[in-house]
């Protein structure tokens, strides 16, 4: 293993990274999608620190979203989707929080949220889309008028205009750009100079990181700089965009990381069962969030045999034949 010289000042524990870049009221976005590559080590750390009043901006971040909402860390949400595949067609704690009025939700779509991150990345104040014309996604706003103009909240949810280039019958939806305070993603590899490699789908992770004021990357492993330079076509983010690098093996559990591990049906089913009941949910938070001092302690509770069951096959990238019921 080469020296971590290029990571000087960036390599830190998850506690340091969250301490430095996530505060009460921050606007944050997390990487991944439903049951894949959610930065869960960071999410559990945020919950453990009882950080409050977050404005989470997300497309379809199922597990991270539900844990953060369920732990009471989130006050406002810009979101396209709160679901977790077959384990939770609607994320359970998210659903309860919305029905109880505990979080404010502004509904967008996956395309809209991706474009809003892209606009933020490109430094343009808004971006047009052809999604949602004539729908309530465009017509209805979930944020009350008095919030308009606050930090991180645009003066309008969207604005519909005629195509300014004058094509007949061609309205467009203008979407406000997003520039979150911090983006947190989980990647397979970071090199000793801070280059990030993501294997498999990148979702909107790259747009999110480029739009944000700070970037935390948690990763399965650190690899030599020369190794990622051998095949730069496969790399996702350059070192100069990354503010914090955290080594967190199994750091996306119970969501999947291609070539490293599958999603964990045992824990996701357990989560689904306890999330339905307020008392059992409170007990889950005590047991799995507040009652464990570190990500290592969390993994100890999951257990070595279960982590072995979900270990990815080298060729397929997931765990073939895994009992997913």
């Amino acid at each position, binding site marked *: 293993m080469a020296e971590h010289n290029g990571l000087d000042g960036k390599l830190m524990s998850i506690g340091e990274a969250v301490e430095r870049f996530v505060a009460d009221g921050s606007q944050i976005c997390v990487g991944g*999608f*439903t*049951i*894949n590559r959610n930065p869960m080590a960071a999410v559990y750390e945020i919950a453990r620190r009882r950080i409050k009043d977050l404005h989470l901006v997300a*497309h*379809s971040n*199922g597990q991270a979203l539900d844990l953060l909402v369920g732990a009471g860390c989130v006050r406002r949400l810009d979101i*396209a*989707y*709160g*679901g*977790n*595949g*077959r384990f939770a*067609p*609607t994320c359970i704690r*998210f*659903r309860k929080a919305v*029905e109880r009025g505990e979080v404010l939700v502004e*509904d*967008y*779509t*996956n*395309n809209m949220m*991706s474009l809003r991150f*892209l606009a933020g990345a490109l430094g343009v104040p808004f971006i047009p889309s*052809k*999604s*949602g*014309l*004539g*729908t*309530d*996604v465009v*017509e*209805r706003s*979930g944020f009350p008028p008095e919030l308009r103009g606050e930090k991180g909240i645009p003066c309008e949810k969207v604005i519909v205009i005629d195509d300014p280039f004058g094509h007949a*019958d*061609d*309205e*467009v939806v203008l979407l406000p750009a997003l520039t979150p305070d911090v983006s947190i993603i989980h990647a397979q590899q970071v090199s000793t100079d801070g280059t990030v490699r993501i294997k*498999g*789908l*990148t*979702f909107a*992770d*790259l*747009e999110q990181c480029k739009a944000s004021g700070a970037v935390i990357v948690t990763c399965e492993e650190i690899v030599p700089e020369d190794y990622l330079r051998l095949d730069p076509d496969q790399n996702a983010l350059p070192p100069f965009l990354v503010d914090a690098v955290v080594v967190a093996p199994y750091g996306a559990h119970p969501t*999947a990381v*291609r070539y490293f591990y*599958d*999603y964990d049906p045992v824990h996701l089913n357990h989560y689904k069962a306890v999330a339905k009941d307020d008392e059992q949910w409170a007990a889950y938070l005590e047991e799995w969030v507040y009652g464990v001092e570190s990500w290592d302690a969390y993994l100890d509770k999951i257990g070595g045999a279960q982590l072995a069951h979900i270990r*990815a096959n080298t060729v*397929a*990238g*997931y765990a*073939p034949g895994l*009992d*997913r*019921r």
Partner: protein
Amino acid sequence: MSKPQKSAAGGAAAAAPGAAAAPVYTPREMMAIAAGRFIKDGDVLFAGTGVAMLAATVAKRIHAPQAHIFFETGGIGPRLEELPMAVADPRVMAFSNLNAGLVEAFSYVANRRLHTIAFLGAAQIDRFGNMNSTVIGDYLHPKVRFSGSGGACDAGSLASGFIVFMQHGVQKFVEKLDYLTTPGWLTGGDSRQHAGYRRGGPIAVVTNLCVLKFDEVTHEMYLAERYEGVTPEHIQENTGFPLDVSRATVAEPPDAEELRILRDEVDPQRLILG
């Protein structure tokens, strides 16, 4: 709705005395096969979660091996050796044509050169194929909160057309949506075009009872095919708005080979078949 389900499953045997024993199947299996039949070899398919994934997978195994399946997450053309149970399942990334992200995926949905057909589900649908997957009750104080659009509104807006999966029932086939998440034919006629859409709209709705399509002029939903053993009256009773049933034919039931592939190869753990 256990009664029609049983009659649909057992109907073939009763209707064909003397023939070889017709296969028994569940409504969900019929849905997957019926929807899969809309897929043509060479089509470009945008698949959501659930039965959509099943229909796409089974069609690719049976009659459309050259269909191209892609997911909004950016998984483009995976071989699908195991059934994914979410669009972000690592199984949509294995042996694919390429792995990308959301912005790229939506550029295939919207691409003017491609004939993309999307498969979608929802909590409510109206007679023009508009759909709700956001809330039941008042939007600001919802009685029930659902997942939200995800990519459904985008596929409904941008794709060349879409096919819907629904469980039939008056709570789901409603006169008025509580929230319009995904645009169908809007208020019918040419209202979709006037709203600014260049193409698209719902093609068919596949339920546990029947297949519904949309009139070419009014764009109102009508009963196109009922599954064997299911009466038009039963379908109307489970639909919260008046339905034209005069054009209905009886859907071809799945054959033994279709069922074998669906059960043994596509979803052996019955993750989606239940």
